[in-house]
């Protein structure tokens, strides 16, 4: 299988992980075209650096790490993303939470797209990879306090977008005060 470095089989790795890598790429980039490009970059990089796989079973996490790296690089090439309103607001937690199917996919992606890329990565690692805040801090080499702060703000922002129609417009408005200024 593709999980063994000594028998790295590109076709098998693509078959095993393509869909999850694409979905993750779509959540990060917010566009099908960018997600496909990112996905192909991930598998090309993996193909070129296949010797880096150390442990069986680590391929998925390794591919996700490549994806985050490719995404961050692609963000550097673009114009800076405006900081969104990242106020903490526990009142956006619905009293009667919906099911996953009931969540509006378009609003979900719009809410993610409003976030600056470092917040988007932390959010995707939490929701998509099911990483704990400690794992996120370790993988991104960030202080735990930074991760917890970004996570709380990003989640609050996303819920505002999903569940509070009155504040959606306000959340979408760029607001420099929400991000460290300098």
């Amino acid at each position, binding site marked *: 299988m593709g999980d063994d470095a000594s028998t790295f089989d*590109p*076709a098998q790795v*693509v078959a095993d992980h*393509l*869909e999850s890598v*694409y*979905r993750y790429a*779509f*959540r990060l980039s917010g566009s*099908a075209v960018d997600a*496909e490009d990112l*996905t*192909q970059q991930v*598998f*090309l990089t993996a*193909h*070129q*650096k*296949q010797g880096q796989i150390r442990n069986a079973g680590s391929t998925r996490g390794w591919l996700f790490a490549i994806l985050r790296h490719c995404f961050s690089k692609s963000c550097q090439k673009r114009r800076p993303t405006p900081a969104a309103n990242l106020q*903490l607001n*526990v009142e956006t*937690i*619905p*009293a009667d*939470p*919906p*099911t*996953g*199917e*009931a*969540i509006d*996919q378009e609003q*979900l992606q719009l809410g993610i797209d409003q976030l600056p890329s470092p917040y988007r990565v932390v959010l*995707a690692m*939490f*929701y*998509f990879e*099911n990483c*704990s*805040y*400690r794992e996120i801090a370790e993988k991104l080499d960030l*202080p*735990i*306090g*930074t*991760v*917890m*702060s970004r*996570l*709380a703000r990003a*989640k*609050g922002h*996303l*819920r505002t977008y*999903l569940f509070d129609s009155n504040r959606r417009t306000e959340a979408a408005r760029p607001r420099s*005060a929400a*991000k*460290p*200024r*300098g």
Partner: protein
Amino acid sequence: MTSCPIHDPRIIEALEACRPGSDDLQDPAMEPLARQIGVFPELGTLYDRLQRTDRAIAEAFQRVPVPAGLAARTLARLAAAPDPLGDLLLIPLASADVPTLHEDIPPKAADCRTRRRRWLWAAGALAAAACVLVAVLLNLPKAAKFPGVEEVLNQAIAFFDRDARTGGTLLGPASPPPAGYPPSAALPVRTCEVRWRPIHDFLDSRGTAYDITGPGGVSATLYVVKLGLPGLGSSPPGVPMLATGHRSTAVWQEGDLLYVLVVEGESREYERFFLELATGPVT
């Protein structure tokens, strides 16, 4: 509900960090949250609601349709890429097998030798370039190594948390501040009790810390180091640039000095600190 700590950023951050269906709440670092949930049932209700909401969002995160033909297109692009192992493949030749004349060398072995020489040259050039790069990086000013304002603010809060903030010298005409690290011109601390002390490892630099007790009792420490951080303002903002874990902080640049203020408290304490510097104690 008034005493329930749902507006405490530390509790909110801990709530938000617990993954649905996990045992994150058992993490020793989550002990304050677990304790508060035991005390305040409404916080437990909020925790359950957030867990269910997060489960739904996590499920929705996975619901992305994959375009048809993506696997074929990806495999085609992989097939078109050079084989990373093939490029490095060197055919080992026993000494007895090595032909003495160039024209006697089989084309494949000659290709391999050419390729090997090319790789050796490339590796040598890369090693030389890496040495030059390391030398350049080592000689860059320290500010170039900073990851950004946010990291500086986080490091300042971490430093403040482990800083004992004791043993300073009362600032006054008899004990002026150390030369080279004056208090900020943008921070009018004349009405405050200020103590200064040297610091050695703030942002990997030496400098001076000014422990300030504001007119209304708000405590803050101003760290001064000789560093340059591009793009900063020349005075402290009226609202903190980062507020987390009961600490509010801001950073600004005056000449070649970097000033980082950490106020003990949330945004309102930070704002009160500045208000009181300007107007005296607020009752």
